């Protein structure tokens, strides 16, 4: 979605349509992956973004293909919000050669540099320096673009958080640091692992704005994002936004989630981001229930087609093992040297 001017508290119908669509795509994509994972056909570690849709979508509603994002192990939502193709994504998660990364990356490394999506990342905290680098290119090439770094509350205690934000701040880079505080890093609560009261507080260490918003409220996220994106595009430097959220599923597929408490139930119902946005859009008269429900249907269909596409796609060919290591030559045999 291209850069846009919104009026204060609301969104246009066009914007709302895009946002609701993307939120649905994330939700149905993730619910579906969850389902399929249960059948045992999906390889590897899979971390689902369901529940946190408002964050990726609120942020990316201000971005276009020239803007970059860095992501995390929980990257499907960021991909979708940044405009990645559902078919290519699903095929990647299946490890097929039609995947966005030809099946070589998988869920934890899904990427699409053409769309400005610099990759999910298997390394917690990996994204901070990477976002700084993308921001540096923007600044040096005067592209007017921004880089958004999504990261978790757990990543907030990794050294790269500190190094990355400090660098972005001293160089006034157009980078936006977006904490997705879902209360846990794996099975460890935020309030145990982090000595700060809120992640937004840590902005003071870098003399930059820090803001805490309801990460279940896509409008609130979008508005905070707008301020940050404007600052960034104006050369005023980075912003730290903390979005308070919750993940619908476990840390990864297979997690028994015994560390969760009562709050779990509420998050799956009342506090649900999509439900909230649905209510907002209909109550404000921006869209009708019929329109929204039709979108829901269509998105389900698109996800079905993505699964079908993935399942029908070929596995990578053996020779692909040795490709893409270097630009200038192919790796040689090596298995028996």
């Amino acid at each position: 979605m291209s850069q846009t001017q919104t009026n204060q508290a609301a969104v246009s119908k066009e914007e709302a349509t895009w946002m609701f669509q993307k939120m649905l795509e994330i939700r149905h994509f993730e619910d579906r992956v969850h389902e399929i994972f249960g059948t045992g056909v999906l390889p590897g570690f899979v971390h689902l973004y369901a529940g946190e849709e408002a964050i990726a979508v609120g942020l990316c509603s201000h971005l276009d293909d020239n803007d970059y994002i860095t992501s995390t192990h929980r990257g499907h939502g960021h991909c979708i919000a940044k405009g990645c193709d559902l078919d290519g994504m699903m095929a990647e998660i299946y490890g097929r050669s039609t995947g966005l990364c030809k099946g070589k990356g998988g869920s934890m490394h899904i990427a699409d540099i053409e769309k400005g999506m610099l990759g999910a990342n298997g390394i917690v905290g990996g994204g901070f320096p990477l976002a700084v680098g993308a921001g540096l290119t923007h600044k040096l090439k005067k592209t007017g673009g921004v880089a958004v770094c999504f990261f978790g509350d757990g990543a907030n205690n990794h050294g790269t958080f500190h190094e990355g934000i400090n660098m972005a701040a001293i160089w006034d880079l157009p980078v936006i640091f977006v904490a997705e505080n879902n209360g846990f890093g794996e099975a460890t609560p935020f309030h145990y692992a982090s000595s700060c009261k809120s992640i937004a507080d840590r902005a003071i260490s870098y003399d930059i704005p820090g803001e805490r918003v309801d990460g279940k409220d896509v409008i609130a996220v979008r508005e905070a994002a707008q301020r940050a994106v404007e600052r960034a595009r104006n050369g005023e430097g980075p912003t730290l936004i903390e979005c308070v959220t919750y993940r619908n599923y476990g840390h990864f597929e297979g997690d028994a989630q015994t560390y969760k408490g009562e709050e779990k139930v509420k998050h799956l119902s009342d506090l649900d981001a999509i439900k909230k946005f649905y209510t907002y859009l209909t109550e404000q008269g921006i869209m009708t229930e019929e329109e929204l429900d039709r979108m829901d249907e269509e998105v389900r269909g698109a996800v079905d087609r993505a699964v079908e596409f993935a399942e029908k796609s070929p596995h990578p060919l053996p020779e692909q093992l040795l490709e893409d290591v270097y630009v200038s030559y192919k790796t040689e045999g090596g298995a028996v040297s």
Partner: protein
Amino acid sequence: MTRQLTFSQAVNEAMAISMREDQDVILLGEDVAGGAAVDHLQNEEAWGGVMGVTKGLVQEFGRDRIIDTPISEAGYVGAAVTAAATGMRPIAELMFNDFIGSCLDEVMNQGAKLRYMFGGKAKVPLTIRTMHGAGFRAAAQHSQSLYSFFTHIPGIKVVIPSTPYDAKGLLLQSIFDDDLVVFFEDKTLYTMKGDVPEGSYRIPFGKADIKRSGEDVTIVAIGKMVHTAIKAADELSKNGIEAEIVDPRTLSPLDEDTILSSVEKTGRLVVVDEANPRCSAATDIAALVADKGFDYLDAPVKMVTAPHTPVPFSPSLEDIYLPTPDKIVKAVQQMTGSELVM
């Protein structure tokens, strides 16, 4: 005596025994218990390690000794170095060995060198347990086998067990060893079962184990590759070739004598290592024999390894990434073909 445990249980039991024997043993790592400061969990764990290897420890030893850490590898691994130097005997769990990228300094420049830089006036009785290995569909950043790094660095001991029995005895030795030990656990071996005696026993470092005897070719196989090599040996045996499988068990120190004696007997060496091939444990062992065992060799030294590529995600690629029995058989055939009937 014939009690069977999984590899994972063996590792768990070694930790529990060491913690009963010595109050100074503590365990630090991400979600080694899990659920720290969650009201309804207290001394119950939420996870007991990402793969469940440390399950039950927090119940027995409490959260003062089974310490969940933030996602701060440099922080807690570095802390473990000085905790060790100041009187504790910590075990630090680095969830995946790939995460050494976040804490290499603490291991290489602090822990490994502290004793030497201090002129021998300090010691670092720290064990770093870490998961490695491909085959789990965990892709490029969670599947590496990085023991060559640690073997390269003086001041570190490197342990890589291939069976539940070895895992328990070597881990107990590691924990009570007075030097920095990096202990590798292959994530695909955790469910493997084997005989494991009750109680405490220690396997000394620098003693390779001959996992299979044979006269025709020496196969030095590292970690999980021991089992791949055994399959290959069974195959070869059908063709009249008897392979001797040497499991070094510790890469640093390395039991040069056992490897050299075996090659002296067989005249041939294949090294099987699932790590990437350059500057690797495979080249290390091959070079050792090319130097000190040259006169024993009747054929070129062969190395069966992963190719020089990251670990691919796609199962169809990952399966051909890893050394297989078939590749080992081929390597042996290449070197023996002219002399032995296939």
